[in-house]
């Protein structure tokens, strides 16, 4: 039981730190609540979709901002808008907040401002990805310990009989 408590404590503490440091907000907690025994990998699957989406959208923004002939700010804004929507849905608070600023620079057609935001959003996305991957790596350890404990309980019952 000590090992389980320790792992659980580590997982809880790490989750709490993600909230405290603003990486995720309550929406992420809602995602975790949706996960159940029928969809045990739901949060990991949603996060993976989000990471793929992020990379695609960031590449779109970078390409659009690189155009020498003239930046299509509407195109950049469309990608930022979509990223804002999906980051909001997964609870990626810091990414979402950068997107809010980013949209203002798109509206103002400020290329330098947009490039700075692109850099920030890339940084925040990379940080979040690394943090969430660490969190997800903690989960299988807990499940493995649960399996071991369940099998020990089974052996214990048989020896009593």
């Amino acid at each position, binding site marked *: 039981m000590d090992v389980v408590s320790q792992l659980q404590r580590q997982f809880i503490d790490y989750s709490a730190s993600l909230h405290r440091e603003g990486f995720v907000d309550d*929406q992420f907690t809602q995602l975790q609540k949706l996960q159940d025994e029928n969809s045990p990998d739901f949060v990991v699957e949603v996060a993976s979709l989000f990471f793929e*989406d992020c990379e695609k959208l960031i590449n779109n923004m970078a390409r659009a901002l690189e155009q020498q002939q003239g930046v299509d700010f509407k195109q950049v804004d469309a990608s930022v*808008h*979509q990223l804002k*929507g999906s980051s*909001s849905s*997964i609870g990626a608070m810091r990414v979402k907040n950068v997107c809010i600023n980013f949209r203002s620079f798109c509206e103002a057609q400020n290329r330098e401002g947009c490039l700075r935001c692109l850099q920030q959003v890339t940084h925040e996305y990379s940080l979040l990805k690394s943090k969430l991957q660490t969190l997800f790596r903690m989960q299988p350890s807990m499940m493995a310990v649960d399996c071991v404990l369940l099998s020990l309980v089974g052996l214990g019952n048989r020896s009593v009989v």
Partner: protein
Amino acid sequence: MVLGKGASSSLSRKMVDGVENMVSNCNDFTVLVVDDDPVIRKLHDMHLKKFGLRAQVVENGKKAVDLCHFGTIFNLILMDKEMPIMDGVEATKELRAMGVNSLIVGVTSRDSQYETQTFMEAGLDFCFEKPLTADKISFILQELNKKN
């Protein structure tokens, strides 16, 4: 924020009353999720599963219109606003012009009041800010039960 014809301030009271009836009736409803964002599609699909609903998902308004045009009937359509090829406003107008009587609920990012109003005027029954939550879906399903 909920916009809608008949949106009520007594949301929580409505959700408490008749929740069991709502869940037991849910299995008969057909739902279409229209959104270009794969994260949102997965999230909404999962929320709906929790209420015993299986949703069809498409990524733009044109696919939604085509499905209905070829005779597929949905009780509920969750419609994103900004999508490529055909956006939610256009899709909603076309669906209503075709005589589609489904409950159509718009789902938007935080847009200006004017943009949300334009979306409502296209023919929505309700409009919610993203993301949908269990509370919002409860409300929608209660309205769906009333309609059916």
